[in-house]
């Protein structure tokens, strides 16, 4: 089957393209990118006034399968991803069982083979059961197909163990994704420490609980030469540390989540648990620091930290509710609204943050619209606004921080390996 996308603005920073071009797709691959391509019987999508970008790569997603299929499955999560323009995602290993062995990777691969609607990449666990006590077989995980390792949800507390993990990951050529949080400091905290926590009578989570761990993780990365990636950066101090480390040549990259660059801690004042996440929403100054870091490149990419939870786990007292929000279906619109509309990023830079850079960090061949690449393409109406409504979300869970808000930029089509998914009809 041949497909021709006509009259759109192609934004493909991997190939330094931002121009009105047509794209011809055949057999799941991009065949030609040029002006005025003739249809010759191909199916045509008229993309006039639309923006065409490579499929997004989200390197921080919790698909919950195996183990918590009531929250999300590989099938529902990847369907939600496609709707949000995400064609490739990295699945976090905090499932039941944790993805900490060759055998469990095989199990996950089987599920992916059977039900994934998008490209699912595998992140293995650093430690067995993610307990931070004993390392999983890191070389074995790599061999079985893991692209990175992480104990996401937890940080490895033991410095020696983490140092060992970094050494082994370096040797295996694996990226380590760091959930940088000292739980001895964050404790039972549920919101950012400060005035808002005080007003609400809730326990606070200090900045120190994050940036002291970022500092340690960077130190050990420097010592071992391993590539690390700091997940869900939330505060100013972490940004400063990452910027300094990059200057020194430490192989560190970082991501920010849409909720962290969109909201501040004030959003939690109504005790709405769709604003409860870990790390928590921080102050205005922190949000501004994240935005500037996205602009200046200190933060390399945007990742959703899509964390589905059931209503039973969310629609309860704030202290008892689970941490986390879903984000696959809203991350692109949130980024357009908060970063492009505000002129912080132009379209090519946005595509870098959401496709090119995460692909580069993971070492995969995505994020480009060059001839011969997989036809993973997103067509966006950049002007259209939409209201984020619970009943329209297709993720199995509905814990979205953007519910009831109007976001700019609507995904009209997601094309995954040449297959067209229209969303606006």
């Amino acid at each position, binding site marked *: 089957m041949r497909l021709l996308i006509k009259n759109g603005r192609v934004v493909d920073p991997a190939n330094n393209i931002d121009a009105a071009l047509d794209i011809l797709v055949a057999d799941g691959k991009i065949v030609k990118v040029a002006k005025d391509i003739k249809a010759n019987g191909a199916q045509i999508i008229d993309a006039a006034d639309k923006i065409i970008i490579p499929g997004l790569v989200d390197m921080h997603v919790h698909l919950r399968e195996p183990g918590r299929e009531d929250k999300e499955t590989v099938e529902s999560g990847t369907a939600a991803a496609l709707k949000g323009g995400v064609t490739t995602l990295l699945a976090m290993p905090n499932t039941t069982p944790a993805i900490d062995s060759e055998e469990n990777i095989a199990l996950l691969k089987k599920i992916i083979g059977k039900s994934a609607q998008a490209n699912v990449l595998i992140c293995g666990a650093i430690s067995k059961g993610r307990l931070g006590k004993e390392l999983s077989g890191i070389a074995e995980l790599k061999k079985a197909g893991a692209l990175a390792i992480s104990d996401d949800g937890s940080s490895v507390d033991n410095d020696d163990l983490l140092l060992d993990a970094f050494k082994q990951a370096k040797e295996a050529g694996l990226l380590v994704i760091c959930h940088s949080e000292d739980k001895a400091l964050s404790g039972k905290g549920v919101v950012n420490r400060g*005035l808002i*926590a005080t*007003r609400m009578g*809730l326990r606070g989570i200090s900045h120190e609980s994050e940036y002291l761990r970022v500092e340690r993780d960077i130190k050990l990365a420097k010592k071992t030469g391993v590539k690390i990636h700091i997940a869900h950066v939330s505060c100013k101090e972490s940004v400063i540390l990452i910027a300094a480390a990059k200057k020194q040549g430490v192989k560190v990259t970082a991501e920010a989540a849409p909720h962290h660059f969109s909201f501040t801690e004030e959003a939690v004042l*109504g*005790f709405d648990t769709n604003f409860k996440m870990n790390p928590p929403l921080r102050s205005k100054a922190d949000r501004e620091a994240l935005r500037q870091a996205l602009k200046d490149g200190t933060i390399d990419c945007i990742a959703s930290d899509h964390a589905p939870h059931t209503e039973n786990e969310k*629609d309860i*007292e*704030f202290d008892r509710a689970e941490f986390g929000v879903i984000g696959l279906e809203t991350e692109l619109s949130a980024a357009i609204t908060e970063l492009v509309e505000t002129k912080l990023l132009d379209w090519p830079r946005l595509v870098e943050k959401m496709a090119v850079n995460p692909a580069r960090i993971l070492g995969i061949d995505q994020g480009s619209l060059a001839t011969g690449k997989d036809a993973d393409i997103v067509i966006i109406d950049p002007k259209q606004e939409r209201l984020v409504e619970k009943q329209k979300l297709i993720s199995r869970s509905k814990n979205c921080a953007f519910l009831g808000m109007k976001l700019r930029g609507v995904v009209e089509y997601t094309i995954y390996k040449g297959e067209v998914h229209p969303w606006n009809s």
Partner: protein
Amino acid sequence: MTVKGIIMSWVRKDLLGLEYLSKEEIELILSTADSFKEVSTREIKKVPALRGKTVVNLFYEPSTRTRVSFEVAAKRLSADVINIASETSSVKKGETLIDTGKNIQALKADIIVMRHNYSGAAVVLARNIDLSVINAGDGWHEHPTQALLDIFTLKEKLGRIPGLHVTIVGDIAHSRVARSNIWGLTKLGAKVTVCAPAMLIPPGIEELGVKVSHDLGEALKQADAVNVLRMQFERDEEEAFPKQLEYFQNFGITAERLKKAKKGIIVMHPGPINRGIEMSSEVADGANSVILEQVTNGIAVRMAVLFLVAQAREENAA
């Protein structure tokens, strides 16, 4: 009706905290309470204002004082009162807060008075049901009727609130009474000082317009009233907590200390008192203490709140 000369401008379904109220709304509750105070001095201590209404006391935390005060207040308004304590309810069987609320709604009750150990629980419940919710204390967040009765008592004793110096002593960090008092007093124009060891002062509290002191002597110097919080030394928390004896030496209210304070300083306490910990018995039972009057005023204030909320329900229904 004994309620005279009150401008009815209460429109809220719920009373969740003093943070959410305007100065005028707080004043309306206080003046309404003023009219209701007389009811408790009558031979027949009852008015028909809430006849045919059902008030459910839903208590997830043990409380005798507040629960009984609400019960007496509701009964003096002729409401039917049902008490649910978490120990005896389906809460123990794992029912969610919202499900419990919806079940009480299905019983066609009118008002839920809730005490809960988690901050924000009343806010969450109120958002999810049509019944009125009166917060009788949620976690460390708010205890609005306690602060209202404290303020009512202060006004009764000292004639005004604007310009008064009020010092709150004790575990500010973990106190809903402190938070509600801070909101109410500052909105009405009082000057508030919070006094405690540093570990019991929550971050950012100065931004609410209060002074922070770690020196009780200094904090009492200018005070027209001191509100002494209950210290929960039995608290099983991960947070740091001072030693009991050390606390009494530095922050306990004694007759000695009061001698150095302003003459006629008023001593308040939300109860129950730990004698010899927050204050000496001499102070608790002394001339400056208004602790039992607070209990009496609590009835009037809670009658006012129940009345205003019920009134708004009828107006919304009409």
